[in-house]
């Protein structure tokens, strides 16, 4: 070795670095695993690494065109009936889960806050609910009547699947006087929609509701919000729609899922199904796969339903229910067994 550092030495060291880095790049260049692609030692992902197959897609992927166009074409304004006492304990969890899927969300209260809530000219209490409803719809009509097609009312303990609501409404005309929900039979001749399960008014229905109060045809004749609104709908010739799915299963539910789904022996209608206009079913036929709402849902169940609806799923499962398949298509379908 020479005494000083010669130019050769510099070149040598440079070469050393270049050689090392180049080899490093080659060896570790497989981006899909953290391990050297060349070495079968260490973790072998068994069957996978044996196969040298060209990239083939098993199922072609197409974007969720359905979903985004529905959101544009079926604009839903949601308003939540709440109050100062329930913001932290209930409304907060609605805000954290399904509220963001509405085209517009409004939290209606007696007091305006940064939640944000709209402050209506009412007081709190069960006997104020119909006043709140009237004032809420008046506020919405004043500020938003032209921006949305449908207007949903829900309680702060109602869980709603907006996509399923839009699916139902996409087949309806918002210019027609109609409203949807869980139809109850008593008190009003044409029936009325359960308040807890949530109900949704078409643009025309909203207009007629406001008109009814403007002209004195509808009044605050009762504190029972859902029944009273149902009476006003009848007075103003707004039709109660049928929200059941193509298999006749209910989509709006005034109680939590366990009240309906548990299999029972055939029996007389239990008290919580007494009001139903359409003959209710107990057990799995109660409820549509594309359910729209459940009521008496407290925070833990709110997140659970959110998890079940939008997250937890069986991988690869071919769902039985397909609302878009017509009967003729079903008959000609050949199902080939893959996993048997």
């Amino acid at each position, binding site marked *: 070795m020479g005494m000083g550092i010669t130019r050769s030495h510099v070149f040598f060291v440079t070469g050393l*670095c270049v050689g090392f880095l180049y080899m490093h790049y080659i060896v570790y260049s497989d981006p*899909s695993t953290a391990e050297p692609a060349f070495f079968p030692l260490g973790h072998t992902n068994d069957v996978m690494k044996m196969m040298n197959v060209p990239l083939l897609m098993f199922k072609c992927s197409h974007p969720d065109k359905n979903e985004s166009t529905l959101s544009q074409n079926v604009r839903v304004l949601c308003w939540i009936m709440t109050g100062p006492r329930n913001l932290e304990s209930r409304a907060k969890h609605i805000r954290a889960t399904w509220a963001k899927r509405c085209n517009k969300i409004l939290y209606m209260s007696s007091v305006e806050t940064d939640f944000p809530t709209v402050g209506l000219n009412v007081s709190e209490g069960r006997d104020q609910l119909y006043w709140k409803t009237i004032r809420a719809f008046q506020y919405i009509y004043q500020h938003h009547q032209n921006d949305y097609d449908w207007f949903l009312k829900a309680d702060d303990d109602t869980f709603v699947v907006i996509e399923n609501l839009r699916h139902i409404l996409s087949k309806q005309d918002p210019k027609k006087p109609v409203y949807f929900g869980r139809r109850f039979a008593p008190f009003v001749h044409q029936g009325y929609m359960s308040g807890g399960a949530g109900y949704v008014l078409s643009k025309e229905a909203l207009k007629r509701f406001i008109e009814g109060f403007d002209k004195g045809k509808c009044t605050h004749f009762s504190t029972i919000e859902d029944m009273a609104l149902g009476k006003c709908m009848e007075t103003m010739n707004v039709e109660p729609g049928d929200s059941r799915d193509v298999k006749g299963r209910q989509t709006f539910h005034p109680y939590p899922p366990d009240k309906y789904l548990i299999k029972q022996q055939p029996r007389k209608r239990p008290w919580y199904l007494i009001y139903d206009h359409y003959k209710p079913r107990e057990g799995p036929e109660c409820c549509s796969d594309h359910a729209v709402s459940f009521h008496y849902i407290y925070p833990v169940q709110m997140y*659970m339903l959110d998890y079940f*609806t939008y997250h937890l799923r069986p*991988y690869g499962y071919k769902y039985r229910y397909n609302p878009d398949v017509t009967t003729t298509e079903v008959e000609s379908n050949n199902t080939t067994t893959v*996993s048997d």
Partner: protein
Amino acid sequence: MLSEGSSFMKGMALGGIFCLVLALLGSFTPGMQSSPEDQHHHHHIKAPSTDELQRLSEPQMVELTKKVRVYCVVMVQPKVLVYWATAKDTWSKHCDQAVFYSSESTKALEAVDLNEKDEWARLRKALKHAYDNAGDLRWFFVARPTTFAIIENLKYLLLVKDPNEPFYIGHTVKSGELEYVEYDSGIVLSYEALERLVKVFKDEEKCPERGRALWKLSEEKQLAVCLKYTGVFAENGEDVHGKGLFNGKSVSSLIEESMVKNPQDVVEGCCSDLAVTFGGMSPSQMQVMMFGVYRLRPYGHDFHDSLILLPPEGSDND
């Protein structure tokens, strides 16, 4: 000029070789013995990524779907009849074969009567029976009466795993030196693991039937000990994000915990989208779970999964 050039080339060659040597050494992670039984020493089993699955051709995918078939070993007891009835009418319909094993015979429920009160002896007998009656099924899933399993997600986890290799998967717990799979979250065994287990059952020294009298280990730990003797180690089942797929607690318990731990992101912070099991479930919760898992969903969401699993015949709640 020439000498500098050759110095450079020598340097490059040396640098490259040095790097290769380091990479080679790097594959031998410390602590890993090279004995053939210990070859399967990784502790985390991850579900396959979309990339991995998309590299498979359609016929390969069909092949794999046919191979990943599950024999469910469901442990029941006559005193809690409703759990047997519920498991039979809910999740177990999605197993390729579901067999119920009871502690004692009773006309009320259809099950293989093991005639055994001791939990460990019962588990041994059930596993031996399953091994003898496996037919061409190569994966075994052991559940307690309060466990709910989503078999499709189990198949997804096992899709590219070879059942002729020893696998013992679930929610792993460490107890001193022993790592075992928690019983309540479900235990998964490959055919190879079960075969080795059945062999070591005959060894009263390593794997006694009545357990060591003095310090009675729980059956889940005894299972781990016996398997360890055959070179099979517990592995934690996780999704591609590292979230555990096997849960010993119910959905509501986990959500409650998440509300405390991750109040801003309760659902994301809770459980995997492709969870395989939940434990501590009541019969009513299981019925609701069938709806929540197999039916309730938003219109218009398509997942483009890489395989198709058909619903079971003659079932009305999925």
